[in-house]
């Protein structure tokens, strides 16, 4: 009793002191407090509690668009099933479906369903983040958010451009942001914001040690820059891959040098040799081999990135196509220590569970019938449904734009082409493609082995590309061994933002580039195999009337100069092939 009385007295004394103290709070502190409150009010609605339909365990996420796309960690969605339940701070529970996954980078894209006016966050510039910057982390640590109001923790940036080793071969954190804000089990997948409420990262890892699986003041967020680069691919529904290059680098006396360059690689053909200096990669300069690892680690496979290198002749610029790192066909299993550990959350939940709203753990409700069609299982995909939707949209648009006259099985196309110096004819028929130029004629017979090596070097694969285009314009899947939507990216050398459709025809792989608002491609890059440069064609200003269709200009990208050489097209003749 005495002890209780003493406790009350101490508490009262404390409260009195505290309120007396509150009166003395300087204006600047009050202002900062108000600023924090406003920031948190602004960002909290975009924060998601991600749970398996069963309700056991869970993590966090953040909405990035009004139609419900949200980001989380792969290690959160991996154990949560294809359909999940997501809670927002409006107290409501929404159905959600998996869209795309990036196991290497530990990122997953999901889509919340049932609204087209979801609140979403505003991305910031994670490259501009500095050590010492104030940050707030929002999420669902220990699954405390019974009514889905996210927990907020405050801290500063402890380090930037950090590297965290992968667990096995994936879940690798490169170029990440280290914070001292408290990050605990359940925070995974949740957003990190700067103090003005701009989204700068996804909290996914922490250094746990002798103190157990609780925060020790060192946690790591995937940079929003990396997330945004991958979102463009994740929305394709694929299992998205990270990248590798066909060369390695090492730091030598503060200089980053190529240590080995594959002789079959693109950089080798551009003249890169071991011992040359790598000056910049993907637009960022380097001072160590670690820098290279950090830069490469945030880039998705398949994109083409600029590279600057130096040898005895001076500085050179080129672009490099990034190759796939893993080529996962199935979502990989999480390593044991990264698997959801229900004990972490559940046991700590138990004493508080009674009476808390929204957290009763009932058996998972079945997937509502209205959403069932939103998931399709297929090798290489997290959810093939989304890929089909994008393909349908792009291919249907293309089919409508191409006059049927052009795509009849037996027609041939002959473009009248001209450069400043001379004129000629570019033709493609079901059986062959040819270029007639300054009296000479080069042709390519697909009946023979279809390879760029069959056509003269100076044409840069134009003829092979035209044959592929003829096939592609018929918009008939049967003509290719595989077609799929790859995602969005910026293409070299123009930097245009495009949607990418990939077709595979035996050994020939084409990437078709579409710009928003244009049903016709602005170009294609064509690969035939190792050891050969890509044929990179660009199309400009498509002319269309009732029966014909042709680009006013056809460009060929010169790999050495990384520039596009254009020829004007003045007409197209469509008809039966000459016998």
């Amino acid at each position, binding site marked *: 009793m005495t002890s209780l009385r003493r406790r009350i007295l*101490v508490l009262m*004394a*404390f409260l009195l*002191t*505290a309120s007396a*103290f*509150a009166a003395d*709070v*300087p204006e*600047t*502190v009050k202002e*900062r*407090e108000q600023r924090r409150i406003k920031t948190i009010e602004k960002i909290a609605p975009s924060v998601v509690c991600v749970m398996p339909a069963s309700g056991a365990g869970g993590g966090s996420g953040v909405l990035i668009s009004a139609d419900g796309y949200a980001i989380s960690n792969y290690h959160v969605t991996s154990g949560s099933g294809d359909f999940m339940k997501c809670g927002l701070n409006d107290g409501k529970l929404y159905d959600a479906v998996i869209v795309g996954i990036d196991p290497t980078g530990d990122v997953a894209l999901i889509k919340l369903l049932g609204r087209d006016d979801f609140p979403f966050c505003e991305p910031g510039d994670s490259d501009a983040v*500095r*050590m*010492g*910057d*104030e940050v707030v982390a929002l999420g669902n640590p220990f699954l405390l958010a019974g009514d889905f109001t996210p927990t907020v923790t405050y*801290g*500063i*940036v*402890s*380090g930037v*451009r*950090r*590297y*965290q080793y992968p667990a096995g071969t994936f879940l690798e954190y490169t170029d990440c942001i*280290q914070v*001292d804000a408290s990050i605990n089990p359940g925070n995974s997948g949740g957003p990190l914001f700067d103090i003005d409420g701009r989204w700068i990262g996804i909290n996914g890892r922490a*250094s746990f*040690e*002798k*103190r157990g699986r609780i*925060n*020790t*003041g*060192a946690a790591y967020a995937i940079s929003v820059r990396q997330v945004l680069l991958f979102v463009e691919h994740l929305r394709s529904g694929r299992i998205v891959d990270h990248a590798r290059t066909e060369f390695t680098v090492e730091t030598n006396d503060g200089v980053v040098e190529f240590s080995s360059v594959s002789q079959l690689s693109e950089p080798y053909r551009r003249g890169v040799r071991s011992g040359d200096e790598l000056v910049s990669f993907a637009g960022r300069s380097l*001072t*160590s081999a*670690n*820098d290279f690892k950090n830069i490469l680690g945030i880039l998705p496979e398949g994109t083409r990135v600029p590279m600057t290198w130096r040898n005895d002749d001076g500085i050179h610029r080129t672009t490099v196509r990034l190759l796939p790192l893993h080529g996962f066909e199935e979502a990989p299993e999480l390593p044991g220590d990264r698997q959801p550990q229900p004990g972490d959350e559940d046991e700590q939940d138990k004493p508080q569970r009674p009476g808390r709203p929204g957290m009763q753990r009932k058996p998972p409700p079945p997937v509502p019938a209205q959403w069932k069609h939103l998931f399709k299982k297929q090798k290489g995909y997290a959810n093939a449904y989304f890929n089909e939707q994008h393909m349908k949209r792009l291919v249907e648009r293309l089919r409508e734009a191409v006059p049927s006259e052009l795509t009849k099985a037996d027609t041939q196309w002959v473009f009248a082409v001209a450069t400043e110096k001379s004129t000629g004819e570019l033709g493609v028929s079901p059986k062959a493609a040819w270029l007639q130029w300054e009296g000479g004629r080069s042709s390519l017979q697909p009946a023979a082995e279809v390879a760029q090596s069959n056509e003269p070097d100076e044409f840069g694969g134009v003829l092979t590309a035209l044959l592929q285009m003829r096939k592609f314009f018929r918009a008939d899947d049967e003509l290719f061994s595989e077609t799929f939507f790859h995602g969005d990216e910026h293409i070299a050398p123009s930097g245009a933002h495009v949607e990418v459709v990939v077709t595979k025809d035996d050994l020939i792989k084409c990437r078709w580039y579409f710009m928003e608002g244009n049903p016709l491609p602005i170009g294609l890059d064509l690969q035939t195999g190792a050891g050969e440069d890509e044929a990179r064609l660009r199309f400009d200003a498509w002319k269309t009337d009732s029966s014909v269709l042709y680009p006013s200009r056809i460009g060929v990208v010169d790999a050495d100069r990384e520039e596009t050489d254009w020829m004007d097209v003045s007409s197209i003749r469509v008809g039966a092939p000459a016998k």
Partner: protein
Amino acid sequence: MKNCTIKTVLSAVMLASGLTADENKTPSVPDIVESRQETVVKLFGAGVGNLDSYGSGIIISEDGLVATVWNHLVNNGFLTAVTADGQRHEVIVVGTSLKHDLAILRLDTAEPQKFPFIDYKSSGALKTGDGLLAFSNEYHVATGNEPVSVMHGVLACETPLDAGLGRWQFPVKSPVYLIDAIVNNSGAAGGLVTDSRGVPVGMLGREIRHRDTNMWVNYAVPLRTLEPAISTILSGQRVRDDEPEEEDRVLLSDRKLTAVFGITVLPAILKKTPAYIDRIVPGSAAAAAELQRGDLVLMVEDDVIQSVEDLRAALATHRKGQSISLTVNRNDSLAVKTLVVP
């Protein structure tokens, strides 16, 4: 200590003011971090058992003297220091002080070199509730040629510390800074603590547990406590350890030994009175461990017990609920008994 707790809670209210007051007059936190992080080096050496192979150090002179904690890293040699710009240097141990848990190292440079440093002689002081920044090589996160990590916190209180790890007793007797953030992680020992304006105030100590609570302690030794020792070492003299190590040990009182464990030993009349058990309280932990009158305790866990003082010291380091093995000589044969600390 109670007074300290109340102040700690109060200080949390002041968190924001601590780090960011007077923005117009003081540089921003990122600017302060940028200027201070380069005075902290990452140390890499040999780990021992569970002990880490990495640590931190503070550059305290332009020519590359470094202050750090005198721990296994320093003792085991082969120590390398990496500066914030990624340069690697071998280090030479200049001197140490046991009672400050301090070692002074020199970065071994082929040619004279100028390093960014902090002036340990004009350090600041923290008051309870002041904001602070802690710089360290925690978890060796900063693996590349990148600066160490920085954390923010608030001074909880300044107090003498009764803490240690196992039988090792934290030797600094004067008050240390207790910090409200988890700053003493693996590899953080030897890191720099500054006030919210970047003025150096302390050095992060090694990982230790508090003797009363068994909790890991987050603390730093004030630079003004270290300053005389650093000066002594740099003047080429030895820091005198005027208190023999023996007296630093915490001994369990005879009363507690009986009340808690149920053991009564012979009175310590000799310098090394053998640890014979004189009496066992029926129903006590000692009785449950089947210890008997006349047993001579030879070992507690792996520690050799040569006297009743040794026994009282060894039992003082163990916590409630722990199982301790006691090796005793009974009738000229050895027996191992398991004692559960009540």
